[in-house]
């Protein structure tokens, strides 16, 4: 007896979109949370979400429904009755095994012609997680840079579409990774991660390192500066802010241009740009290779791993970006504990978890020094023990010679006397 409600039809599904019924806690905030993004547009269209908002009108025009689902033939053909058969060569089957198997809809969907193609799940990140440590490290660094740019943009009004585009874009051409990675990250005067100022800024006073991510640091700095130095610091701050905003604008411009045209770098000349377009036309999303990643890692260095990451929104951007680039979803519970680039990297670059204890022990090379400890991947059976001492072959031959079952008890029951003794029913 089934108690399941049946599927909602296509027409009623669209109707239910217009009148969503939520439980009473649904507030106005829900509207904020249900903003759809451009990158997942096609995905959300391929699979219809019945109870969320309707697809956009521009998307509907570009939408072609998936084809390929083949319903079973509706007309059924019945076999001719034995007494109506005119074929003289016909011989009726004597039992069921002789019958030819025809028809039936078992495994109908196992045939790709019936099931259709292109129904696999498409997630936010790549289909397969990246596991190469070098590539992961580059991806993490790139995510840190891009997320910081996005975070800085948040003060500027009307940058939400650009920010979303930046955070939700894929790897892009290979040169984009190389360009992005050239942006240096380092520790600020309060130990938080910042974009490394350019050379002329570096030569200035220590106070002008103030390009911190958090407001807290800014306040602390202000508290530490004496009124005499204040004017100086303000000047320095303005300078740094200008430089930083230039850098942000530069990166944003680069990213925008590259996202739109697939061009590697905005600094290149037009002829180079054209060549680059030709070269990267067919490789829109280029995940860098291990060799490329290793070369980039030499440039990146290790300076970025130690400084603190405190800002929550920045962490969220980083996690989102890493998920998009590598397929590693950083759980919120882990996000709490991540307080530096190094910790973040350690969280992502991990060997796959062993499924069995024996595998874990083998991977960690435990008990190697103990001569009296052996680890087996499964239970050591009596047969295994006999094999270890080389007696199993003899036992097997003897059992076979006597016509006894080698493994198990065949059809031989337990001794009947056992019942009499124990009184079991």
């Amino acid at each position, binding site marked *: 007896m089934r108690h399941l*409600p049946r*599927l*909602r039809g296509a*027409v009623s599904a669209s109707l239910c979109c217009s009148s969503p019924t*939520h*439980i009473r806690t649904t507030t106005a905030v829900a509207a904020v*949370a249900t903003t759809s993004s451009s990158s997942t547009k096609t995905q959300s269209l391929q699979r219809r979400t019945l109870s969320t908002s309707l697809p956009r009108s521009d998307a509907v025009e570009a939408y072609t429904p998936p084809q390929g689902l083949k319903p079973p033939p509706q007309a059924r053909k019945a076999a001719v009755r034995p007494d109506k058969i005119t074929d003289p060569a016909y011989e009726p089957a004597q039992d069921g095994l002789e019958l030819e198997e025809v028809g039936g809809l078992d495994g109908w969907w196992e045939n790709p012609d019936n099931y259709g193609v292109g*129904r696999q799940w498409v997630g936010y990140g790549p289909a397969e997680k990246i596991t190469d440590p070098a590539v992961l490290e580059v991806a993490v660094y790139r995510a840190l840079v891009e997320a910081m740019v996005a975070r800085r943009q948040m003060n500027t009004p009307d940058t939400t579409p650009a920010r979303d585009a930046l955070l939700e874009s894929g790897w892009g051409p290979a040169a984009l990774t190389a360009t992005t990675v050239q942006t240096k990250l380092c520790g600020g005067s309060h130990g938080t991660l910042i974009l490394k100022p350019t050379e002329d800024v570096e030569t200035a006073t220590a106070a002008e390192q103030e390009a911190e991510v958090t407001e807290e640091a800014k306040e602390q700095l202000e508290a530490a500066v004496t009124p005499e130095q204040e004017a100086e610091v303000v000047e320095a701050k303005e300078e740094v802010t200008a430089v930083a905003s230039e850098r942000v604008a530069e990166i944003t411009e680069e990213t925008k241009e590259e996202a739109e045209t697939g061009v590697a770098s905005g600094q290149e000349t037009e002829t180079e740009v054209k060549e680059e377009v030709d070269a990267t036309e067919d490789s829109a999303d280029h995940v860098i290779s291990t060799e490329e990643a290793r070369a980039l890692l030499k440039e990146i260095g290790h300076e970025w791993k130690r400084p603190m990451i405190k800002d929550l929104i920045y962490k969220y951007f980083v996690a989102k970006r890493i998920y998009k680039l590598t397929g590693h979803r950083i759980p*919120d519970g882990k*996000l709490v504990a991540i307080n530096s680039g190094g910790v973040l990297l350690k969280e992502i670059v991990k060997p796959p978890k062993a499924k069995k204890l024996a595998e874990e022990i083998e991977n960690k090379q435990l008990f190697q020094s103990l001569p009296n400890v052996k680890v087996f991947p499964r239970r050591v059976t009596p047969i295994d023990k006999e094999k270890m001492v080389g007696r199993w072959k003899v036992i097997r031959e003897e059992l076979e010679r006597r016509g006894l079952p080698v493994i198990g008890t065949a059809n031989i029951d337990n001794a009947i006397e056992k019942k009499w003794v124990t009184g079991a029913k």
Partner: protein
Amino acid sequence: MAGKGMRCLSEAMRGLSLGAQTCRTVPVRTAPLISRRSMATEAPVSKITRSVAEKWTPITTVPVTVHSFPDLAPRSLETYSAKHLYLPLRRDILHLAVVYEGDNTRQGTAQAKTRWEVAGSHRKVRPQKGSGRARVGNKQSPLQRGGGKSHGPRNRDFGTKLNRKVYDLAWRTALSYRYRRGELIVTEDGLDLPLPEDFLQQAQDGLLTRELEDAFIEKYVGEMLGAMQWGKAHGRTTFITGEERMNLFTAMGVAGENGRALELEDVDVKDLLETGRIVVERSALKEMIKRHRSDLVTSIFLPGQKNTKETTMGTVVYPSSKVSYA
């Protein structure tokens, strides 16, 4: 001679005793600072203690990313109080709650007839004496075949009690346990399973039999959850929604080996602890916490007084217009 010798000895001993010396400074041999070093291998200073000067700032809020479903794109960021989603694991409290729920879920409807409930005449089966057989009363006796059952099961309530505050703490502890392990995935409101349009159309047009519908859903959901690493091979998934969603609930009923779907009203602590992960829509999560925080908020309201124990729940951090950046 001998006595004098003894006296001398005892006097000498007395003179050496500590009590005889009224004030005695114990000579302490202090080595110069540079050479003060033990011969043993020195253990590194433990990091479990912290400097008093260092200010202890415990975590007060924790982030929750709201994802879209099924592509799991992060859409927004909210914060919840650490008392809601970052509680330490208390196995004892979880055990209390699960046992309490189990007790209260028992039907307790088993009942066997006693000798007084078995129908029939209460006539004496045979005379007390003279038959050569054992004495017997009536045929309802528990000793007789077809007689009543002595000490059989009776209808009763197996329910036990648990303090509301303990139960609520257990509920949030279970959520926190999932959160800490990264097994709590929060989605946008309206969590439902999108099924392919062409399939829905054909199902509505009656082109598919019920068996074919089920087979399609089983295959589709199995492949989808398998690709997400949420399926049978990864410990199944529990979906929690505020109300019944037709496609999701039907699909999870058919493809039950890959997970289950529950309405908020049907969820209890044990459900939160089962399966590989919990996928819950944000409004359902908020409602869950709202219903289970009796130890955090006071039920006594005085005019003009704010509930000071109230903690943040689902505050949207991003996207928000109020965000500023230094």
